[in-house]
Each structure stands twice: as structure tokens, then as C-alpha cells.
């Protein structure tokens, strides 16, 4: 188990290094430079900026210096914003994105599971149809449309929640709902299918035949087993929510990580691009790592394969 974990960890680090290197190469080959403006900059000003940010050095030196800095968890300055370093960006933005993502995920899991269970238990009756209509809406309506609708009614018309920014807990409600709808729908559909499958299994029939209460059978035997496929997708779902909330963060003026990457690219702000790529990759790699380790707990065959190596 330890050897398997170490092996997975080694590959996680190699993957991260490969991501950094590839991003560095791509970043310097795409057209555009961070200091370009409408109308050319006087050569002296341009040269001073290049020297100030070390961009006058050969690419290999820049790459080496960058790797050395990253090892020390220093992601460098932002080329566009001297008031905030890339470290500040991440330290400020990541917890906010994580908070938003976690809150959305909790809503998605909680209501998704309830909808899925209800739909399966009331199959082909109105609760099933209603749950699945909600699920279809959640999957097919983009979250930015949903966000606009929520703002229009809950903020502008009814004044229940504020329109935007991230000051109090009330500010977190609408964006969390908007962000949670897609995963909620996904979980609801998956849970419904999984429950229906489990409910048809022999051991459920046996349990029922034994005369156990219906509620006991559902909670103890059906739901618990139907949850298994949900675990499998949780890692990816979490990564998607935490890292993929750019539009929601923009609409609600949330100071998260979302805009950092996109703006970094459009500004050719090299340290910001690299810093955000590293964080996003690290989150994904970490979650995949956790899921891999979790699999070994669930399925001993994986552990055996790992140890053979």
C-alpha cells in the first residue's frame, strides 16, 4: 500500500512538472506580449520593463529561475499588477473559489441524492417526472442564464439577496445555487439509475421477504449501495466545480481564482498563467490521487496490481 502510494505520488509530481514545462513553452510561443498596447511603447520604456521582470534573459535561464522559485512556493510578480503578486492572487482567490465550490457541492450532493432517491422510489409517478424535469433543466440550462434569472428575481425584484460581491453569507447563496444546478442534476440522474438497479437486486427482495420494514430496506440496503457510483464521480465533479466557476465568479463579482487564469492569458501575464495553471493542475492531480488511493480501499485488486510493480 505504501509503495503504491509513493509510486502514485512520484507520478503526480512528474505530471505537474510536465504541465509547468509545457505551459512555459506554449506561453512563450503564442503571439502577443504582456506590455503591448494600442500604439507602440517607446523602446526605452519597453526595455526597462523587460529588464525589470527578467524577460530580457534567455528563455532557458527564465525557465530555470522559474522552477527554482516554484520549488520555494514563490510564483513571482504579476506583470500587469504591481499591487498584487501571484502568491497573493492564489492565497486570496483559492479559498474563495474553494468555499463557493464546496458550498455548491454540498447543495448538489444533498438535493441531488434526495431527488434521485425520490424519483426512483416513485418511478413513473409525478415525483419522478418532477425530479427528472428539474434534472433536465439543471443539465440543459447554462449556469450563467440561471444566474441572471436568480439575480433578476431574488435580488432585483424581491430584494431577498444582494446582486453581487462576496461580503456576507447572503452573498454566497445565489452563486452557490447557480453553480450547483448542473452537478445536482447529474447526481440526481445517476442516483435514480443506481437506485433502480439496486432495488431490483436479489438481496433487496430477500430483505423484503424477511419482513423488514420498507424504510429500513431502503436506507440500510438500497441507498448505501446505490451511493457507490456517486463516489466514483465525486473527484472529477469536485475538481470541475472548484476550478470551473469562472463565469459564475464573474457574474457575481466573486474574488476567486476563476478570472485569474483567463485574464492572465489575455494579458499575456506569464507568471499569472503559470501560477494558476500550477494550482489548477495540482488540484486535479491531488483529487485524482485521492480517488486512486480511495479505489485501493474499495477494490483490493488495484492494490495487488500496484504492489506487483
Amino acid at each position: 500500500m505504501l509503495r503504491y502510494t509513493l509510486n502514485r505520488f512520484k507520478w503526480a509530481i512528474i505530471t505537474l512538472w510536465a504541465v509547468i514545462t509545457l505551459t512555459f513553452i506554449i506561453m512563450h510561443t503564442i503571439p502577443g506580449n504582456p506590455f503591448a498596447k494600442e500604439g507602440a511603447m517607446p523602446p526605452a520604456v519597453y526595455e526597462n520593463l523587460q529588464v525589470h521582470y527578467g524577460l530580457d534573459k534567455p528563455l532557458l535561464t527564465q525557465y530555470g529561475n522559474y522552477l527554482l522559485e516554484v520549488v520555494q512556493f514563490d510564483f513571482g510578480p504579476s506583470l500587469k499588477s504591481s499591487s498584487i503578486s501571484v502568491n497573493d492572487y492564489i492565497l486570496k482567490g483559492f479559498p474563495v473559489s474553494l468555499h463557493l465550490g464546496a458550498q455548491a457541492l454540498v447543495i448538489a450532493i444533498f438535493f441531488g441524492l434526495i431527488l434521485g432517491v425520490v424519483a426512483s422510489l416513485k418511478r413513473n409517478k409525478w415525483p419522478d417526472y418532477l425530479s427528472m424535469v428539474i434534472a433536465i433543466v439543471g443539465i440543459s440550462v447554462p449556469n450563467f442564464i440561471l444566474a441572471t434569472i436568480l439575480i433578476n428575481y431574488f435580488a432585483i425584484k424581491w430584494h431577498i439577496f444582494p446582486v453581487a460581491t462576496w461580503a456576507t453569507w447572503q452573498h454566497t447563496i445565489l452563486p452557490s445555487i447557480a453553480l450547483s444546478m448542473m452537478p445536482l442534476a447529474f447526481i440526481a440522474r445517476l442516483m435514480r439509475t443506481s437506485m433502480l438497479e439496486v432495488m431490483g437486486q436479489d438481496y433487496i427482495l430477500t430483505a423484503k421477504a424477511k419482513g423488514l420494514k420498507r424504510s429500513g430496506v431502503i436506507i440500510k440496503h438500497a441507498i448505501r449501495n446505490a451511493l457507490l457510483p456517486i463516489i466514483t464521480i465525486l473527484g472529477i465533479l469536485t475538481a470541475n466545480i472548484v476550478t470551473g466557476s469562472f463565469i459564475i465568479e464573474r457574474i457575481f463579482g466573486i474574488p476567486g481564482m476563476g478570472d485569474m487564469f483567463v485574464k492572465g492569458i489575455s494579458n499575456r501575464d506569464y507568471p499569472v498563467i503559470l501560477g494558476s495553471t500550477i494550482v489548477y493542475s495540482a488540484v486535479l492531480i491531488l483529487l485524482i490521487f485521492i480517488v486512486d488511493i480511495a479505489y485501493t480501499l474499495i477494490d483490493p485488486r488495484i492494490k495487488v496490481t500496484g504492489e506487483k510493480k
Partner: protein
Amino acid sequence: MKKSKFSVLALLMAIMLILAACNGGSKETSNEKEGGSGDSSGSKVLNVNNSSEPGSLHPANAQGTHESWILEHTFEGLTKKTEEGKIVPGSAESWEISEDGLTWTFKLKDGLKWSNGDPLTANDFEYAWKYALKPETAADYAYQLYYLKGGEAYNSKKGKEEDVGVKATDDHTLVVTLEQPTPYFLDLTSFYTFYPIDKKVQEENPKWALDAKTHVSNGPFKLTEWKHKESLKIEKNENYYDKDKIKLDAVNFALIEDENTAWQMYQSGELDIAYPLPVDVQGQLVNSGDKEFKNGAELAVYYYNFNTKVKPFNNAKVRKALSMAIERKKITENVAQGGQKPAFGVIPPGIPDANGDFQENTGNLFEENVAEAKKLLKEGLAEEGMKELPNFSILYNTLDSHKKIAEAVQGMWRDNLGVEVTLENAEFQVKLDREKAGDFEISRAGWVGDYVDPMTFMLWETDGAYNDAGWSNKEYDNLLKEAKSTMEPKERMAALHKAEEVLIEDMPILPVYFYTKPYMVKSNVTGVYAPINAYPNFIYADKK
């Protein structure tokens, strides 16, 4: 085994719940306490949106509107501008100009202070300007100080700091020596690169501008809170000489990038001023008669570059034909929808001439005329040995409004001239790269003037840094040289009028419209005005 699977899920859910519980509700409710018009403390707090996190609140390192809006309220230069755009004394009390226009002597007001109580002297101006020019500072806008004698040489490491033409001869006197006569120099002294910085603070703590706790300024307001990427707060500066005229106690700046969201916050009462407005909202408001809607002039022109190095756009007749065949009024009324003014020249209204308004005196330098355009196109193509226009494209940077305008132009050329053009969308940085490399036929462009003088729109000198059209005309170059050599207003303006005529006669660019500045102000807010080259100003605003 089942147990362990369930434990993993339970653990994950527990982590999520704890995270949500820890973060939610623990934040301070600053917006709630001070936001909106219902303020329990009775203090007057204005809520506005700055659109984006300022890159820097150090006058030397600032480089755009996200910084300038805050700096204009927290700092003050030697001069400032009134609602009518008149230049009046700021930190300076008076000034004298030598006859040759090269030496400007500013006398500072008595008793000026920084927001931390330090006395503000002429040395702070000298120090700040030289600091911005220092190569190690790597200031984007250092070139704004190239007007100073020796400024460019020092910035490009070819000259010495002591040779830069700015000197504090005593605490109250600042003597500025310029490279050449610059009649609009006074206008420049109200621009943020020309603001002073507290020499003592800068030398003791070079990072003073990064934090509200250490930020020191000399304007009507001072920075008191800066939550990065979230919000900013400025409060009345008790050390400002004119503090009795400042009625607001504080201004909250939200940092919302999405124009639609900011507009919704304005509608819900969370913001008192909405600027900029989403394009479709502008369209609805322009003719609505809404009393909260204001539409100020803007010192900017929207135009297309012709690549004059590429056939057949090297031919002036072809360029003129294309320019004469579009209907600008339709574009401003149906597409741009912000009350913009169709442009038949490049210099927008609002710039003073020797007498009157420069643009009004110029009038229209060409007319839209489809029949004439067809004739010119035929002639121009024949001169280039062509029968019809080859495939070409309009290059524009990714923005819905640019796309719509390009589509309108595409349709007008098709209908009026039978010319087919493709539209090419590129990311802003890529568009800039391609323009600099001459890799385009026609490209979208815009220019916002740096100062209120026609010279700021004279961008097309041979090999000029802003001349993406690659155009060269000796007469135009000579007229600009003539205008730069004199302080005599009539002579100068005559040369600039002539230069604009030469430019439009040869048409290396296709002017489309002059921008406007539509914004909304709540009816309980008074005293907000929009200078032609700045965001709405609320230094003297009041809130009931």
C-alpha cells in the same frame, strides 16, 4: 468493504460541510453597514464600481482607467479641471511661462500637507517625476514625462538624473524646463504620472502604495481600505486644503468586472453611479428621457486602419471610396447606440481651438456619397491594374460591439459597392501583434486622447509609434513640426487644422464615430460631472 466505501463518502461530505460552515457568515458586513442610501450612521457614503482591481495605486506605476479613477480622487497635481474642462490651480497657486515656452515656474500653495500630516513641498514633485523616469522604476507611462528636458535621455539610460528639467528651487517653487514649446503642458500636470509622491514615505517604505495602511496621498480623499479583488474604500482627507468643500465622507469602490452585474447592482440600489453601461442598456436609455441618465463627451475616436503598404489599399481613391460608402449615422444609431457622433474627421468635439471648438470649426472633412464612392473605387482599382477588389478582411479584437459594427460595415460595402469582405476576429494581443507586423488589410482601432489638445490625435507621423496604417506624408509631418515649434495659438491651430485635412484627404484611416460617455447617477446624488478625458468625477458630489 461496504463500510469503507461509505466512510469515504461520509468523510468527503463532512469536509464540505465544515468548509462551508467555516467560511459562510464569518465575513464582515461592510457593504451592509455602509452601502446603499440607507446609512444608519448618517455619514455620506457613495457606492461606485471600479470595474477591475487597480494594478497599482502608485502614480508612477499606474497605467489605466482602473487606477486613474481612484488616483484622481486621492491625489492632486499642480493643476486640476473644472466641470467645464477649464484648467485651474490644484496644488500650485500660480505659474509663469517664459516667452519661448520652455521654462515653467510653478508656485505651490501655502500649508499643503500629505494625508499623513507631512508637509508637501516642491521637492515631492521633483522627486516623483524623476522617480517615474528612473529606468529601474520601469514605469509604463514614463514617456508622459518625455516633455521634460533630458527626460527621455534619463529614462533610456543615455542621460543623468540631475539633467532632467525639473528642479525645486525652494519648498514652494518648482521650475520645469521642457524639450520644446508645449502649450498643453498645463493640461498634462493634472495627469496622474505628474502627481507628487511623499519623498520621505517612498524612501522609508518603497512598498507604501500596496497597502491602505501605508498609502499616502495629497488629494481630497485618502485610501483607507483595500481588499484585493473585492473592494476599496476612500475617505475624506482631513489634511486637504479644500476639505470644507468636500461633502462626501467616503466612497466605496466595488470591483465588479461584468458590466451587466454592475448595472443590476445599480438597479437594486447597491450602486449610486453606473459606468460603463452595457451596450444594450445604453441603447434603451439614450432616448428614454430618464433623469438619471447622463451622456458626457469623450475624448476618443473609433476608426479603421487601412494597411497602406498593401495593394490596393495603397491607393487613396480606394480608401476614400470605402470610407465614403458607409453610413455612419446608421452605425451610431442602430449598432453602437450610445448617442455617439458620426466622425468625418479624427479630432473629436470638446477640444478648444484658438477660438471656439476645434471640431466644430473643422466641420465635416468629407461626405458620404455612394455614387462618388463607386467612381473612385473604379478609378483607384484601374490605377492599380485591378478590375475588382481582391478578397480582404476586417481584423477586429474579440468584443461583441466590434463584431456588430464590422458586420454593419460589411453589409454596407456589399450593398453600396458590391464589395465582399470577410470578418476576422482575433484576441486583442494577437490583433496588436498583427498590426505591428503589418499583417492585415483593414483593422479596427480606437484612440483615447491623453490630454485635451488636437495634438494628442496626430498619430500618423511617418514611422510614428502609433501609425499602424504605415502611412507617410511629408506635408503632414511638416505641419506637425510647425505646430510643435510655436506657442502662438492661432499659428499652431492653423497648422493642426491643415494637418487633419491632409490626413483625411489621403484617408489612411477610416473614421467611424466619436465616442460618448453614457453613465447613470442616482437622483439623490448631486455634483457629479464627467471631464472629457476622465471617468465621472465626484470630488464635490453630495448625497441626500
